């Protein structure tokens, strides 16, 4: 899995992931999310458009990132989840706490509300 962090408008960090977010990659992803918060960007948007598969460990990484972001005074929001990611978020009902947006722009703009 590849992961890049870009500085978006309003100090929001846009985290783009590519590949599978699973048992093999979750730990590194969680660490990068926490590092981004520690570096001063607790407002995260995770773009999942290019993530083909998320498993329970991947969800754990997103929850870990959410906790770090909340403790830092921010939040973690999901943008553009692929169909499989939407299914697993729905099965676990985690879509109640991980807010999902149709685009990165919408997710970033929602921080201004």
């Amino acid at each position, binding site marked *: 899995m590849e992961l890049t962090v870009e500085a978006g408008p309003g100090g929001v960090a846009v985290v783009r992931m590519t590949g599978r977010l*699973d*048992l093999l990659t979750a730990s590194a992803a969680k660490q990068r999310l926490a590092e981004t918060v520690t570096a001063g960007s607790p407002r995260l948007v995770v773009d999942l458009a290019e993530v083909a598969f998320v*498993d329970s460990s991947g969800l*754990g990484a997103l929850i870990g990132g959410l906790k770090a972001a*909340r403790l830092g005074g921010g939040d973690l929001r999901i943008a553009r989840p692929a169909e*499989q990611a939407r*299914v*697993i978020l729905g*099965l676990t009902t985690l879509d109640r*706490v991980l807010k999902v947006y149709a685009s990165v722009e919408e997710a970033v703009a929602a921080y201004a509300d």
Partner: protein
Amino acid sequence: MRRPLVEEFVELGATVQHLDTLHAALDRFWAAIALVPPGEGNGTDPAGVGATARHQVSIAVAEVGANIADHGHPTGAAAGTMRLRLRLYRNRIEVIFTDRGLAYVEQPRDATAVADDPLDLPERGRGMVLARIALDELHYRRTASGTNHWRLVKRLPG
């Protein structure tokens, strides 16, 4: 029992690094199902398998496979393998895993509960609960000779 419409079999190393092989087998299985003529299946989709059912089965297979690799064959144990058989029948998808790792021990807590405070959410322990939710049946048994045997069933509409 009727012959399956589609069958895929793979044997892979029971380690996290081999989960690519499991996903490749799933990809081949879904690709083969897409080639089944509509009359052979039981719905409007190829062989009656909709996208949601496909994702649910993939999620369950990945979780059980990850559990076998992560808990059944912990670091330091002798390298083992797992066998995965994916079958499409007219009215269901059936998946069989076998391996000779440690016995599965069910965790009592329900990690799928969504806490009021997200800071209380567990980050681990969701996998097998998720597999159960995604499927219609999930059976486990360990044979007297020490083989773990998993049977996953997803019923198809029709």
